């Protein structure tokens, strides 16, 4: 059985410009201990899917579908039961870690709080656990750093704090939403290395959202590619990256390889004014008449009329 099984997840926002369909019939699974990466250009709905799993969407969001976690549908859980799962079973870290820490509470205090929420232990024990966690994620002099405030931490150190907080209760799933996007390149590598080690040490499943296809290839077992709110290709990492089926995945990989222009030609459509048929057709070199009229179905992990996997 899968740890996480998302079935036909729809998330939309009612805005003045019309309905934004940020997640359109999204389905994928993550097994226990598996690392899956979610890739795609900015604005295609990756963060919204992640927040949907946590049930931490903005107030104007409408969500439907099923999100099974260990067989239980998270979307039908009572508010209180869902709250108990956050942090304990599913934890999340974000981009721009500095803004994710409360500026008026000490860093150690915030980690100890994460320990305490789910373990109901004494202040002394949670404090000790927090110091241990800080050491685990490689923060030097954890005893001294415990009582410091977020402004005294660099971006990389703040992300380590976030990781310590996220792993406080050994969750079975960690969602990392572009954890290194705002960091320096050298720091990025360190954070990725740390995540990789901790995830395998605790046998935590990972949902990694990233722009960095190199990191994705290095860390993940499987991959899901999103375009304009929907999944257009998914499969095993080794298979998809070596032999991409969908023209969009091919373009993404080409752009990342450095030989071609650094990004995919054209731009992502507005989610309020999606093209008919295949959403990628205005940018696709292979598009034909059928592409403009009929939305392709997902077959063998590829959602395309023309390019098919054998």
């Amino acid at each position, binding site marked *: 059985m899968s740890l996480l099984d998302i079935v036909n997840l729809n998330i939309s926002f009612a805005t003045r410009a019309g309905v934004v369909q940020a997640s359109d019939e999204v389905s994928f699974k993550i097994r226990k201990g598996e690392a899956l990466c979610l890739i795609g250009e900015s604005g295609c709905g990756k963060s919204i899917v992640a927040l949907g799993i946590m049930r931490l969407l903005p107030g104007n969001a409408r969500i439907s579908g099923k999100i099974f976690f260990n067989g239980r549908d998270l979307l039908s859980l009572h508010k209180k039961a869902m709250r108990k799962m956050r942090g304990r079973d599913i934890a999340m870290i974000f981009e721009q870690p500095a803004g994710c820490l409360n*500026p008026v509470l000490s860093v150690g205090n915030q980690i100890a709080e994460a320990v305490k929420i789910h373990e109901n232990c004494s202040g002394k024990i949670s404090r000790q656990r927090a110091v241990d966690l800080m050491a685990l994620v490689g923060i030097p002099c954890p005893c001294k750093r415990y009582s410091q405030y977020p*402004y005294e931490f660099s971006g990389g150190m703040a992300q380590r704090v976030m990781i310590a907080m996220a792993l406080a209760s050994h969750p079975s799933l960690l969602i990392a939403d572009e954890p290194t996007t705002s960091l320096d390149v050298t720091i990025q590598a360190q954070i990725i290395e740390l995540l990789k080690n901790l995830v395998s040490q605790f046998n935590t499943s990972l949902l990694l959202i990233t722009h960095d296809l190199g990191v994705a290839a290095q860390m993940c077992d499987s991959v899901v590619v999103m375009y304009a709110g929907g999944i257009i290709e998914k499969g095993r990492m080794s298979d998809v990256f070596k032999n991409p089926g969908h023209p969009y995945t091919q373009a993404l990989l080409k752009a990342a390889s450095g030989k071609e222009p650094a990004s995919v030609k054209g731009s992502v459509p507005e989610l309020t004014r999606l093209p008919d048929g295949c959403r990628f057709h205005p940018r696709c070199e292979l598009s034909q008449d059928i592409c403009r009229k009929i939305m392709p179905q997902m077959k063998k992990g590829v959602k395309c009329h023309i390019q098919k996997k054998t």
Partner: protein
Amino acid sequence: MVKFIAGRLALAVLIMLGSAILSFSILTLAPGNAAEAILSAERADDPQLAEVESFMERHGLNNSRLIRLSQWLHMLSKGNFGISLRTGEPVAEEFRARFPATFELAASSMALAIIIALPFGVISAVKQNSILDNVIRFVALWGVSMPNFWLGLLLILCFGVILGWFPTYGSGSIVHLILPTITLGTSMTAILMRLQRASMLEVLNENYIRTARAKGLHEVLVIGKHAFKNTLIPVVTIIGMQFAHLLSGVVIVEQVFAWPGIGHFLVDSINARDYPVIQGFVLIIAFFFVLSNLIVDILYAFLDPRIRYGRTQ
């Protein structure tokens, strides 16, 4: 931290000097003659020219402005605010006798404002756009637009004259305090409530609030611990600034309720052109402005670790 406070103190001294010079200059430029005003207040008919001259001579009012200013500053530097032309008592003494009544009124108004505004501001933000939020916002709008004297008269009419629940003037007991407190505290409550709401709405959008929720923290703690402490930084600033405003806003309310505080005395002194009292009182009120701002700065440092540990950019 010590450097931070020392800097603020030095600035405070400069501001006080500026206020002293300003309060002196504005008054000496204002029309009206102190000697005439005071002498005619003491008797029924207009004073003789000779009496006026001798009064001015006695109180040094004939000297040039510059000499009077330097004399006054010299006196101030020794902690002497001069003698009231009207009562013949030292200005500092007159102030000390009346200040407790005014402070009592200002403090109770402030307490009323804080007790009501902070919780309702928070509720209003958390339940944004609900019926409750709209009611709170309407009441707050009404509170800021209601002039003090009008509200005071309305309360007197309603609860004093018609219902007879509270005395309409005077001081000395809790029941005397209630109507003036509501009068003085209403606009403060409304201002604070709106500010607390706006501040909370802003903080609730911050990423660290999302982190607190992602940890599985109970919503009560997300609001009460993580968000509330951050909203206090702007709120405390306004509380401090408004407290000094209360001390000056008290002038009208004391007049309406015949409350025996500094505001009441100040109005009488202005009518009598009692320069030493006006100058002294204005200066002392300025002092409270500066003092409350200083306290705000220090509180600020306790609320915001970035300031507390000396990183001031």
